C-alpha cells in the first residue's frame, strides 16, 4: 500500500536512537549549570492535618543551604484547572504528598539533610479515603468551598435517546458494579525541572513537560510574571504517558527558589516521590446497566460513575469527558445515559495517564458487553460485529465517524487467536476480546487544537523542521521528519527536527490525546509543501519552465515524466539565495483540525477522526492457584496509515504492556491515604518475562483528513487489553472479575465461590 511513497510507510529508525544507545543523550537529570543548586521538598507525612507550626530556623542555618521556602514566604498561589491547589500548604495538609516547605542547597545531600531539620507540628484531622464515604453527610470536609466533597465543575449528566424506553424494549437487561484501582505511570525518568534567571529577570526552565506552551501559560499564572518573560525548553524526557501534562507544585516552587537565590535550581524527584507525588490514574467505581434484544441489537446503556479525585484537581478530574466517548459511542447504542460525580478524598490526586479515562470506561463497557453476550447465548465476537460502528455513522453524541476499521479489527484479531476453534472449549484455556474507540484526529478541549511548523532549507540542502510538537520518547520527531521528507521530496537523512523551545517553535497545544502525528503531522506537511513550492518556483524561473511541469523527489528536481534529467535541489536553493534580489527558503504551516467544541449537553465532534482497535487474548488459568497466564495477544489497530510501521508496533507493544499491567498486576496500594508500595519491589510492573506473544495487526483505512492518511494510535494500544483479559478469563474458567487487577487471589476466590454455588445447586 505504501509503494507509492518514498518515506511514508517505511521502518525508518528513530532519529534520536544513536544518541540513546551510546549514552550520549542528555536527559534533564544529566544537566548541570554553573552554580546550580539542588531543590528538595518537605512533604506531609499525614493524609489530613492542621499545620500548627513550622520552624525553619535550623534548616536555614545549615551550611550549604541557600534558601528555604514555606507558604509564609510567598503569595497564596493556587494552581490546577480548578485553582484548588496551593503550591505550598499553609494551615492545612490534605494528602501525604502535600508540599509544606522547600529548600535549595549546594548539593543534594545537604538539601536532604535540611529536610530533616524543619520542625513542623501537625494536628491530625479525621480523613476520608473512599469517594462514596466522602460524599456522605458529616464526612470531613476537604475544601471549604466544596460541599459534600464534590467537585461540582465535573458533575456531568449526559444522555441521548431514552434509556428507560430502551430497557423496556430489551429482551435482556443486566446490571453490575466494577471497580478500578490507583495505578501510576512509572516513567523511567522521574519528574524534573531546572529553573534559571537571566540578569534581566527572564526565566528559562528546562522541564519534562509534554505541554510546553500550556506550561508556559500555567507558570505565568502561578508566578504572576508575564509569559513573555518565560522560556520553556523541553529536556529529553524519560517517558511521560500523561504524567507530565499538568504543571505541579514542584515547578513553581523550583522557580521561586531560583528567584530567591539568584542561582539556577533543579528539582528531580526520587523514585519514591515519583510514586507518591506524581499523579495517578483515577480509581473509578462504576455501575452499568446494559440492554439488548434477542438478536443481539444493543438497546440501551446506562452508566453511573464515582471518581476518586484525591485532594486536589489536576487533569484526572476531567477524564469523564473522555470516558463519555466510549460510553456514548462505542458500538451503535440508541439510548445512553451517563452520570458522573468526582469526589475529593485525602488520597493522592489523580492526573492524566495514557488513555485519559478510556481504559476504565472500556474495561466496564467491554466486560459488560461480554456478559450481555453470555446472557443472550451469543458469541461475544458476533455481538460486537453486529453492533460495530461503521463509516458514516454519526453517534448520539454528535461524533462523526469517517474512516472506521472496527469490523476489520474484530475479525482479524479473532482470526489471529483462532477464536472459532478456541472459544467456549473445556479445560482451563480461554479466549476473550475487547474493542475500543478513541480520538484520532486531535481533541478540541482548548480554544485552539492546532500546531505550527516552520521549514527552513539551507544552502547545503539541510532541511530543518521547527515544530511545536513534543517528542517524549514515542518517536514523534522521526514521524515528522518522514512526513517532511515525503512532502518536500528530499531524503529523510537531510531532515532534522527542532522542537519545543517556546522561544523558537510555533505554538502547539501539546502531546496529548494521541494528536501529534495527526495535528503536528498535518502542520509539518503544510510547511513542507510551502517550501517545495518556493523551491520549484525558483527552479521554474531558472529553467524557463512552468512550475506545474516540475516535480521534486529525493532531492532531485526534474520535468514531470523525465526523472532521468535532474538538478540537485540545494543548487536551486543557492541560486535563489545568492542573487541581487535573493531570498532564502523559509516556509510555514499552521494546521487547525476542522472540529468543534462540545455544547452544554456534551454534544459535538471534537476530533477530526477516530481511532478503533480490537484486541483478542488467549489465557490459561491455573485453577489451583488462580494465576492467569496470558499466552497471546492479537492487537488489530486502525491507524489510518502507519507512517512508520516500526514505531506503530512499538506503540502497540508498549501500550499492551501497560494494559497487561492494568489487567493483571499493577495497583498503587493506598490505605488511609498512605501509599504502601512506593517502589518497584512492591509495585509490580510487567517485566520481559510477563510479556506474551504479540501479533500486531495494522489496519490501514487511509483517513482523508490525516497526513498521508494517518490517524492517532498511541493511547489506544493500552485501552482494550484489560477487558480482553477479563473476558478471556471468563471464557477459560467461567469466573467474572469485576475489580482490577485480576490477581490470583481474586480468581481463586471466585473459583471457590463458583464451586460452592454449584454444589449448593446440586
Amino acid at each position, binding site marked *: 500500500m505504501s509503494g507509492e511513497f518514498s518515506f511514508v510507510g517505511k521502518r525508518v*529508525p528513530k532519529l534520536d536512537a544513536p544518541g540513546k544507545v551510546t549514552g550520549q543523550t542528555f536527559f534533564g537529570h544529566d544537566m548541570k549549570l554553573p552554580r546550580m543548586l539542588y531543590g528538595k521538598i518537605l512533604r506531609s507525612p499525614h493524609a489530613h492535618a492542621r499545620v500548627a507550626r513550622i520552624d525553619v530556623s535550623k534548616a536555614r542555618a545549615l551550611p550549604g543551604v541557600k534558601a528555604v521556602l514555606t507558604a509564609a514566604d510567598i503569595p497564596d498561589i493556587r494552581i490546577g484547572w480548578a485553582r484548588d491547589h496551593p503550591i505550598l500548604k499553609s494551615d492545612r495538609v490534605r494528602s501525604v504528598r502535600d508540599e509544606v516547605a522547600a529548600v535549595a542547597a549546594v548539593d543534594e545531600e545537604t538539601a536532604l539533610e535540611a529536610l530533616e531539620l524543619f520542625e513542623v507540628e501537625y494536628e491530625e484531622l479525621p480523613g476520608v479515603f473512599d469517594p462514596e464515604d466522602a460524599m456522605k453527610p458529616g464526612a470531613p470536609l476537604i475544601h471549604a468551598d466544596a460541599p459534600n466533597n464534590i467537585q461540582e465543575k465535573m458533575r456531568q449528566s449526559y444522555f441521548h435517546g431514552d434509556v428507560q424506553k430502551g430497557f423496556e424494549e430489551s429482551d435482556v437487561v443486566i446490571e453490575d458494579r466494577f471497580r478500578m484501582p490507583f495505578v501510576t505511570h512509572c516513567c523511567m525518568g522521574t519528574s524534573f525541572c531546572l529553573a534559571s534567571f537571566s540578569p534581566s529577570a527572564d526565566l528559562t526552565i528546562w522541564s519534562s513537560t509534554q505541554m510546553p506552551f500550556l506550561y508556559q501559560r500555567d507558570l505565568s499564572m502561578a508566578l504572576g510574571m508575564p509569559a513573555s518573560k518565560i522560556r520553556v525548553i523541553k529536556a529529553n524526557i524519560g517517558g511521560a504517558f500523561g504524567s507530565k501534562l499538568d504543571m505541579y507544585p514542584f515547578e513553581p516552587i523550583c522557580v521561586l527558589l531560583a528567584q530567591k537565590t539568584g542561582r539556577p535550581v533543579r528539582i528531580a524527584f*526520587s*523514585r519514591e516521590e515519583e510514586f507518591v507525588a506524581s499523579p495517578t490514574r483515577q480509581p473509578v467505581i462504576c455501575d452499568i446497566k446494559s440492554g439488548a434484544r434477542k438478536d443481539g441489537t444493543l438497546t440501551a446503556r446506562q452508566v453511573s460513575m464515582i471518581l476518586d479525585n484525591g485532594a486536589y484537581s489536576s487533569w484526572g478530574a476531567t477524564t469523564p469527558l473522555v470516558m463519555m466517548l466510549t460510553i456514548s459511542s462505542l458500538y451503535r447504542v440508541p439510548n445512553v445515559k451517563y452520570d458522573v460525580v468526582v469526589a475529593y478524598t485525602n488520597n493522592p490526586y489523580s492526573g492524566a495517564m495514557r488513555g485519559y479515562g478510556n481504559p476504565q470506561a472500556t474495561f466496564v463497557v467491554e466486560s459488560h458487553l461480554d456478559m450481555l453476550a453470555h446472557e443472550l447465548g451469543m458469541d461475544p465476537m458476533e455481538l460486537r460485529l453486529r453492533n460495530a460502528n461503521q463509516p458514516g455513522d454519526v453517534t448520539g453524541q454528535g461524533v462523526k465517524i469517517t474512516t472506521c476499521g472496527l469490523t476489520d479489527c474484530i475479525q482479524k484479531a479473532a482470526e489471529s487467536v483462532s477464536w472459532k476453534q478456541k472459544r467456549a472449549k473445556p479445560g482451563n484455556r480461554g479466549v476473550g476480546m475487547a474493542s475500543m474507540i478513541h480520538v484520532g484526529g486531535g481533541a478540541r478541549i482548548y480554544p485552539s487544537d492546532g500546531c505550527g511548523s516552520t521549514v527552513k532549507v539551507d544552502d547545503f540542502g539541510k532541511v530543518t523542521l521547527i515544530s511545536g510538537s513534543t517528542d517524549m520518547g514515542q518517536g514523534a520527531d522521526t514521524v515528522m521528519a518522514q512526513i517532511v521528507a515525503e512532502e518536500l521530496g528530499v531524503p529523510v537523512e537531510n531532515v532534522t527536527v527542532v522542537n519545543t523551545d517556546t522561544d523558537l517553535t510555533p505554538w502547539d497545544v501539546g502531546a496529548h490525546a494521541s494528536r501529534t502525528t495527526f495535528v503536528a503531522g498535518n502542520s509539518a506537511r503544510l510547511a513542507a509543501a510551502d517550501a517545495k513550492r518556493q523551491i520549484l518556483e525558483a527552479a521554474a524561473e531558472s529553467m524557463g519552465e512552468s512550475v506545474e511541469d516540475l516535480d521534486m523527489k529525493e532531492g532531485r528536481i526534474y520535468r514531470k515524466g523525465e526523472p532521468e534529467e535532474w538538478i540537485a535541489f540545494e543548487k536551486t536553493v543557492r541560486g535563489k539565495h545568492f542573487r541581487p534580489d535573493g531570498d532564502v527558503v523559509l516556509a510555514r504551516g499552521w494546521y487547525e483540525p476542522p472540529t468543534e467544541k462540545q455544547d452544554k449537553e456534551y454534544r459535538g465532534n471534537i476530533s477530526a477522526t477516530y481511532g478503533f482497535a480490537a484486541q483478542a487474548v488467549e489465557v490459561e488459568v491455573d485453577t489451583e492457584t488462580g494465576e492467569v497466564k496470558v499466552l497471546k495477544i492479537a492487537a488489530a489497530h486502525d491507524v489510518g496509515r502507519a507512517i512508520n510501521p516500526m514505531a506503530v508496533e512499538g506503540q502497540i507493544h*508498549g501500550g499492551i504492556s501497560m494494559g497487561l499491567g492494568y489487567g493483571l498486576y499493577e495497583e498503587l496500594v493506598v490505605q488511609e491515604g498512605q501509599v504502601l508500595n512506593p517502589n518497584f519491589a512492591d509495585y509490580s510492573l*510487567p517485566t*520481559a518475562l510477563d510479556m506474551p506473544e504479540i501479533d500486531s495487526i495494522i489496519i490501514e483505512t487511509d483517513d482523508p483528513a490525516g497526513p498521508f492518511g494517518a490517524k492517532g494510535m498511541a493511547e489506544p494500544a493500552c485501552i482494550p487489553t484489560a477487558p480482553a483479559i477479563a473476558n478471556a478469563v471468563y471464557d477459560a474458567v467461567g469466573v467474572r472479575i469485576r475489580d482490577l487487577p485480576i490477581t490470583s487471589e481474586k480468581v481463586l476466590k471466585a473459583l471457590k465461590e463458583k464451586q460452592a454455588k454449584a454444589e449448593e445447586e446440586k
Partner: protein
Amino acid sequence: METLTMRLNDEEVALEIMPDALLVDVLRDQLGLIGTKEACGEGECGACTVLLDGQPVTSCLIPALKAQGREVYTVEGLASGGNLHPLQKSFIEHGAVQCGYCTPGMLMSAKALLDRNPHPTEDEIKEAISGNLCRCTGYVKIVEAIKAASSD
C-alpha cells in the same frame, strides 16, 4: 578520601572518591559518564546496570570501592574505534529504543548475556533482561534486537 583505581571501558583510571560513594555516582558525577542512568536507587529497575568483571550489577547499590582493581564497562564503552557494538546497531535498527532511559542498562545486561552465551534462546534473553524495567516498549523489540545481534 580514598583512591579508586579501576580499568574502565578499557582504560586505566585512578581518582579520589569518598569511601562511601556509590559506583553510579562516581561514574556519573565524577567521571561524567552520564549514560548510566539512576531511576530507582534501590537496585530494582536495572537502569544503572554496568558490567563489573563481566557481570551485570546495579551500580546504584555497589560501593565504588568494590570496583577497586577490577574491570568496569559502561554503555560508553560499548562502541569501539568509532564503530557501534552489534547490540547498539541492532537496538537502532529494530526500534528497541523509545524514551531511552532504560536503554543503557538493557544494553549492558544484553552484553553480559551474549558474552557468556553467544546464541541465547528467546527465554534466556527474557530472563537476562528481566531485572531491567522498561515502560515504553513492552520489551518486544528489545528481545528482537538482542536476538538479531546474537545471530550476526
